[in-house]
């Protein structure tokens, strides 16, 4: 067999094949949908071993499922991780990660430029569990360093921030996290593993809203947690200490670099019930199989639209890190050389009237961009964050998050570029200045 037997396959090959071997009996080429709640045990001994985590296998779809396992292994392979756990949504992915890592009294340091829903989860829901969040302007690593306290247990940020397009300095943050022996957790939803792999830059854990570019079709909600397998949890109490819910099992000692994910699955997802449906795992896999092709077109269209808006007389500014005047342009070139995603914001030029009214008029005039609360669809999307996704945030949180009243967020899709430019142009013309 020789050296050919140890080939490391390319990204596109793994996008199509990782995690799915045609089964020995039927040989189905497409990934089968295992729409089942539960699994017949081989025998009583095997059942007992499964419940003790001494065997890897399926018990109940709330914990694991064969269709979902293909999705998990595939995304783990694409992110260069050691494994993954798929869950009900991106919010669930983030939540089960924190629930697994943190204990009451712990703190996390997070970027202030997060998806609005993430901010409310961190600020209000984690607070009920006695976890405190310190937000920082993510652009300077010093801000993160200053916010780290003795009880800080993790750093959290988005590869490409929502909605101003700031890019995390992944390498510097990973170094900082290592010095403090805490994991760097990165939401790579806007990056996707095709544009950026945070684990390659030293991140410990990656989370995704798979609902976005991974699915691409906008028909399924899902999320996933990927572990690098490189973080030493030996002195991290929640993973290393004996678990009262498994007769004192020490997850890190017993499962080594699989310890964190085993705990996410066997304890947190088991107990919170935030499982993904097998049908959604199948649909998200359909998206994953074309990820590279779609992302190439997404970033090409996004850059062209950003340039068009940048030169438009009725646009005040464009926050796309692919443009040379964006403060994080150089960082984007380093971490996302193929392009910094396809979600970005721009500001309408302030006219005589109410700035919020101008935003409303612009959105109402669009014909091709869909006005809705999602990003990463194959279709182009638009939203006015100040009145929708970031509505629950205070003025101070809005300012920290970089959201202004005139700001419009776009998610650029795969339509004919000229049609997108036509639509934006005619809607901008409809806004009175």
């Amino acid at each position, binding site marked *: *067999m020789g050296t*050919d*037997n*140890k*080939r*490391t*396959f390319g990204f596109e*090959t*793994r996008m199509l*094949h*990782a*995690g799915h*071997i*045609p*089964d*020995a*009996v039927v*040989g189905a080429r497409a990934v089968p949908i295992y729409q089942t709640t539960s699994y017949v045990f081989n025998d009583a*001994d*095997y059942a007992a*071993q499964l419940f*003790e*985590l*001494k*065997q*890897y*296998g*399926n018990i109940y779809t709330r914990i*694991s499922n*064969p269709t*979902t*396992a293909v999705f*998990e*292994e595939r995304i*783990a*392979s694409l992110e260069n*991780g*050691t*494994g*993954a*756990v*798929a869950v009900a949504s991106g919010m669930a992915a983030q939540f089960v990660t924190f629930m697994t890592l943190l204990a009451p009294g712990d703190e996390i340091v997070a970027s202030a430029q997060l998806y609005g829903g993430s901010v409310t989860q961190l600020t209000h829901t984690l607070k009920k569990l006695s976890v405190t969040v310190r937000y920082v302007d993510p652009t300077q690593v010093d801000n993160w360093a200053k916010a780290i306290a003795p009880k800080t247990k993790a750093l959290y940020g988005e590869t490409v921030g929502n909605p101003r397009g700031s890019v995390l300095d992944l390498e510097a943050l990973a170094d900082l996290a290592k010095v403090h022996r805490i994991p760097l957790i990165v939401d790579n939803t806007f990056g996707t593993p095709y544009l950026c792999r945070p684990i390659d830059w030293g991140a410990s854990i990656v989370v995704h809203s798979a609902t976005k570019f991974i699915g691409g079709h906008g028909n399924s909600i899902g999320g996933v947690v990927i572990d690098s*397998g*490189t973080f030493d949890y030996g002195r991290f109490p929640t993973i290393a200490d*004996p678990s009262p819910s*498994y*007769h*004192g*099992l*020490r997850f890190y*000692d*017993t*499962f*080594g*670099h*699989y310890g964190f*994910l*085993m705990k996410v*699955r066997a304890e947190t997802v088991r107990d919170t019930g935030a499982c993904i449906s097998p049908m959604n795992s199948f649909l998200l896999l359909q998206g994953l199989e074309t990820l590279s092709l779609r992302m190439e077109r997404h970033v090409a269209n996004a850059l062209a639209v950003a340039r068009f808006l940048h030169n438009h007389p009725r646009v005040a500014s464009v926050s796309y890190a692919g443009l040379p005047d964006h403060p994080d342009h150089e960082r984007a070139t380093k971490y996302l050389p193929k392009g910094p995603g396809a979600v970005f914001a721009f500001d309408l030029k302030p006219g005589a009237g109410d700035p919020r009214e101008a935003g409303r008029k612009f959105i109402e005039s669009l014909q091709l961009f869909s006005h809705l609360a999602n990003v990463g669809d194959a279709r182009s999307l638009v939203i006015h964050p100040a009145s929708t996704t970031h509505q629950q945030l205070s003025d101070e949180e809005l300012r920290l998050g970089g959201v202004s009243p005139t700001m419009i967020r776009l998610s650029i899709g795969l339509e004919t570029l000229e049609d997108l430019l036509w639509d934006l142009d005619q809607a901008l013309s409809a806004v009175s200045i």
Partner: protein
Amino acid sequence: MGFGPSVVCSINLNTTLSPEQRARYQDPDVIRHLLDTCRTIAMVGLSADRQKASYFVASYLRYEGYRIIPVNPRGGEILGEQVYPDLRSIADRVDLVDVFRPASECPSIVDQAIAIHAKAVWTQLRIVDFEAAEKALAAGLKVVMDKCVKMEHGRYGGSLHWAGMNTEIITARKPLRLR
């Protein structure tokens, strides 16, 4: 077990070894050959504590059809098998010596493995002793270092996949029907 002649990515996660050392001490062909051909595994340092990693590995492998011979100076019985104080005391033939002891004990374990004509020595994660490994190789034994027997069996046997882990196995071929 196994997936027949399928191509497999060389796993490169979670090891302290360099690429050259991985090629020498973590060869996928050697690993698959050992998992396929060894039937009796002497586990040096197997604990009687049901929640210890070594016990997890032993109970998993026993269910997968391997005979486990515990080696531990404390004696007694583990998983229904008599515990031997050292490798030399084992009366039956041993195919694989699986090491759950610190690296400092590897030289003596390797000497014993050679003496009892074991086919191979395998040290678990983070247990690395190059000198002892070379001695075993020179004596004609196969060597795997800084790897977990259960994880590797789970990778090639497919069960690790159920836990969402990255097996790094890529193939479009149907696996051989399991026995």
